[in-house]
């Protein structure tokens, strides 16, 4: 699959680069689009569309005679398809020249650190790095090692720990009505962030040790003060891909308000579908599309009220908390196993607010999920540690800030981080990276 997809795009890229004939260029691009998206559709969405279509015609009173296929989703298909697709589109747009180095091109597509879950690289950024002779750069490798360390901390210590609680609640929502649902939803926000950004940190760090600079994928997204800001900080390689190859070709924001709203909505709907063949992802994408449109239409009013009602020192905190809460609502759809489950969680998560101060009732509610109060304290401390590191990271790379400390403190910090990863990471059950499924 990988070889086939790469070969098609390499050949088509070269052919587009060799011709000036607009029609021919367009036809070649179309071949690339159909082959890449067709493959993606077949492996990822065929059964979903067949199932959805069958349900629809059953609801209309007909008996469908459609069969689904027993196919396995190739690992990383959504990521490398988009990566190779951007290569041919960029050549078509004249942004880059086709590669003459077949080995470099195949290495670009199959570069192992980011092959299965990104960051989704652009040829203009990564491909030229394969042409250059690389020499070991201590500073680059050192920063890469630090990123890997933080990535493992996020994944092994936080994400895999909270996964126990999240899985217990979201796999049996009716058993954990009320406070556990709220807790699991907030914890899922940290799980998915730590899981995915942890993977990105490890990928980028590995790239750096090997002498490659991969693009940033996350910039402290939960510090965002609006949904639009969130999308400039979350899964940046994918959101910029959608911006460049879907939103802008649709007209972007250089159109009237209605058309802009449509462009945003469609872009996020497709983004949701990209994540997986399930209505939960589509609703999640649509939800963010609606939020962005709503945010734009109400921005001036909400900003005015914010300045009027909130003390100055809370002006940044309140929008960040509101944004985080809205993002969490979206995560309910993203994590739930079905739309029915998501609706159940949404309608039952605040049903026991009156019991919040009764520790015995609360302990009973959390019973059976394999989590103890000690686990909760541990996770709270680890998330706090992560937030401190991210706070330091907001102006410059956190590793550079640590470097300003006395040498013994620097060693103490890294030994402590590694100790936490080894001792607390090793005791968690191993969970697959969430984005591997996409």
């Amino acid at each position: 699959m990988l070889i086939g997809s790469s070969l098609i795009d390499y050949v088509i890229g070269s052919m587009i680069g060799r011709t000036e004939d607009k029609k021919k260029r367009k036809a070649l691009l179309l071949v690339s689009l159909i082959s890449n998206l067709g493959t993606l559709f077949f492996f990822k969405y065929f059964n979903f569309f067949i199932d959805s279509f069958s349900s629809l015609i059953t609801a209309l009173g007909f008996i469908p005679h459609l069969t689904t296929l027993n196919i396995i989703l190739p690992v990383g298909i959504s990521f490398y398809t988009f990566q190779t697709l951007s290569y041919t589109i960029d050549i078509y747009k004249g942004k880059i020249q086709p590669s003459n180095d077949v080995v470099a091109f195949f290495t670009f597509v199959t570069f192992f650190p980011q092959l299965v879950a990104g960051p989704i690289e652009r040829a203009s950024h990564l491909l030229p790095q394969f042409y250059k002779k690389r020499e070991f750069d201590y500073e680059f490798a050192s920063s890469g090692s630090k990123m890997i360390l933080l990535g493992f901390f996020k994944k092994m210590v936080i994400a895999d720990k909270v996964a126990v609680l999240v899985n217990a609640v979201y796999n049996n929502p009716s058993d954990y009505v009320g406070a556990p649902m709220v807790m699991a939803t907030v914890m899922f926000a940290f799980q998915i962030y730590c899981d995915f950004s942890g993977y990105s940190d490890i990928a980028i760090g590995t790239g750096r040790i090997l002498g490659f600079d991969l693009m940033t994928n996350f910039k402290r997204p939960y510090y965002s003060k609006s949904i639009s800001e969130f999308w400039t900080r979350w899964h940046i390689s994918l959101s910029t891909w959608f911006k460049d190859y879907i939103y802008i070709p649709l007209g972007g924001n250089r159109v009237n308000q209605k058309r802009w709203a449509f462009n945003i909505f469609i872009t996020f709907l497709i983004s949701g579908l990209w994540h997986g063949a399930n209505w939960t992802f589509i609703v999640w994408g649509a939800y963010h599309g609606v939020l962005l449109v709503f945010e734009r239409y109400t921005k001036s009013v909400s900003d005015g009220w914010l300045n009027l009602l909130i003390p100055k020192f809370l002006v940044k905190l309140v929008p960040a908390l509101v944004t985080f809460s809205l993002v969490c609502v979206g995560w309910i759809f993203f994590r739930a196993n079905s739309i029915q489950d998501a609706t159940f969680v949404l309608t039952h998560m605040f049903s026991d607010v009156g019991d919040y101060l009764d520790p015995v009732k609360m302990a009973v509610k959390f019973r059976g999920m394999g989590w103890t109060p000690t686990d909760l304290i541990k996770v709270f401390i680890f998330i706090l540690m992560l937030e401190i590191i991210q706070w330091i990271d907001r102006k410059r790379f956190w590793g550079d800030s640590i470097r300003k400390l006395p040498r013994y403190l620097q060693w103490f910090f890294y030994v402590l981080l590694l100790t936490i990863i080894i001792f607390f990471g090793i005791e968690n059950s191993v969970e697959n990276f969430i984005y591997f499924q996409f």
Partner: protein
Amino acid sequence: MIRFLKNSLILSAPFVFWVIFVVVIDPFNYFGFSNAISGEVKEQNSGRLNTLLYRTISFKRYPTANILIGDSRTDLLPVSELERITGKHFGKLTNNAAKLNEIFELFYFANSYHKLETVVIGINFNMFNEYGYADRVKDIKEIISFPPRYVFSTSVAEACYFVLRAQIIGKDISDVPPMTREEFWKWNIEEKATHWYGKYKYPNELYAQMRKLDDFAIRNDINLIFIVVPHHREFHDRLIEFGLLNEELKFKEYLSSLNAKVIDYDFENEITIDKENFTDPVHYQESIGRLMVNEIWGNKILIGKPLN
């Protein structure tokens, strides 16, 4: 490159020292190379800190054909009395707050090390609940099969501290609750009972596992005995408030349908009505443990009720 490798080595040095330290202290007798800490200190401290890990490692090193599996209530059954009456050597795979799924897993774990002959399982209604779930045995199995998991376990790190403290200043871990008997009694009746019975769901999966275990015992000629250990009536009667009396009856009916021998002590009888027979509402006195052992293995059941 040299600087990078040098720094990587410096970073890994504390962990190499830690490995050596754990191998020397070896609080759970995992490696068995070192006698730096006495066996008694390890048992008093590591054995209390993580009973399950201590007992499973011990079982792996010295497996027995006859075992007791259960939680702290089963742990109170006097092995010496049992050995005296039966003339057989018994091992223990009991641990605090053991869950039924863990007990079943321990059964198979034990059988994988030694062909079992007699297995005594302590069981109560509070365990027969889908929400009564934990998965510590999986961790223990990983630790046993993979030494780095032992060396870098938080339990082992904690145990190293306690055994060293005990060895140096002679202070062992205490398992006495930080309250008076009356306070602890009240806490059990109010909070523990709410925790146990406040959220109940019939455990389909556990019941299926129980049946499977029962069949396995028959097929493999294992003498399987379930004992429903006594609770004080005051604790038992909280089941009425939670509307679970019928569920408890059903639980005992399920037990009576097993091929294994099942003896029930958790009903109104001369043991369960007397507070003096208990250290707390769910833990009987040593004398009651002896009485049950004598009744069951001495073939003169007077108080207990055979369910099948």
